[in-house]
């Protein structure tokens, strides 16, 4: 897949970081505003997908391998299971909210819910991006 024209590349350079930041915002404010781990994760994956589409897979092949999509996917699901199991480790039930809930309507509130959102965000972003680069970028027998 070849890259697109210079106009598309320049606009992508401006847009992709903004989309990435919006995704991070949606993930971090998942317990306050609409959105959450899933929506923010898809936004982050979309920003990376935009970069690969604009610059072409031939140019991005070596870059894509450095981003370690499968590692971050496993990392996200591991963190999520770990947070879920923290309640069991404490001797109570799964998904116990072990952190102080804090004041509502503030960024640091709601206990484990923001942490779960961050874990889901990492996992979904890496998973969708891994599917995309497996379909569009990698060649036969190439490892991710």
């Amino acid at each position, binding site marked *: 897949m070849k890259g697109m024209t210079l106009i598309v590349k320049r606009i992508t350079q401006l847009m992709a970081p903004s989309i990435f930041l919006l995704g991070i915002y*949606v993930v971090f404010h998942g*317990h*306050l505003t609409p959105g959450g781990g899933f*929506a923010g994760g898809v936004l982050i*994956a979309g920003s990376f997908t935009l970069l690969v589409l604009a610059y072409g897979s031939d140019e991005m092949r070596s870059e894509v391998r450095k981003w370690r999509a499968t590692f971050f996917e496993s990392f996200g699901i591991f963190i999520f299971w770990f947070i879920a199991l923290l309640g069991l480790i404490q001797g109570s039930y799964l*998904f116990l909210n072990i952190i102080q809930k804090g004041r509502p309507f503030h960024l640091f509130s709601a206990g484990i*819910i923001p942490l779960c959102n961050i874990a889901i965000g990492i996992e979904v972003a890496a998973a969708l991006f891994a599917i*995309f680069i497996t379909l569009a970028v990698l060649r036969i027998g190439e490892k991710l």
Partner: protein
Amino acid sequence: MLMTALILLIVLMILGAIVALESKDLLSGIISLGIVGFALTIIFLILQAPDLAIVQIIIETLTLIILIAAILKTTRTDTEEEFGTKKVFIWLCGFAFIVIFFLAAMKAFQHMPEFGSKTLRMARTYIDSGLSRTGAANLVAAVILDFRGYDTLGEATVLFTSVAGVVAVLRKVGRKRK
């Protein structure tokens, strides 16, 4: 007013789906398939479900981009339909399915609660005590990550497993280049 807008949007969705099925050009088929997703986004917004609307619009855009990339690389024309006894059989099967579906739906819709009314008693509990028991201002986050945390855990695990399967299968075969 609300019902009129909903019905108009649903008719638009059905028309888009029919165009997507019938068009010979696959690119225009995919674009008219996008009508279904984006009209669904507007429906979610009208029904005051912004969480779902955000996810729907992003997923729709991503899948449209991936499908268009696939179309531009492979072929743009639809394959010819088959004729003869096979086609008659397919038409008969489709007609029988529609008749059975309508009969079952007639039975089922008689017992449906009215549109917009609450069906679950649990919903009232979530709305009343969600903020005080979880501390999350967004009630959707409170439900999916606290009250129904097991579901989200299973969903994330399913996503992880499916992506692991996709990567494992496609890495061996891969795409044929040159």
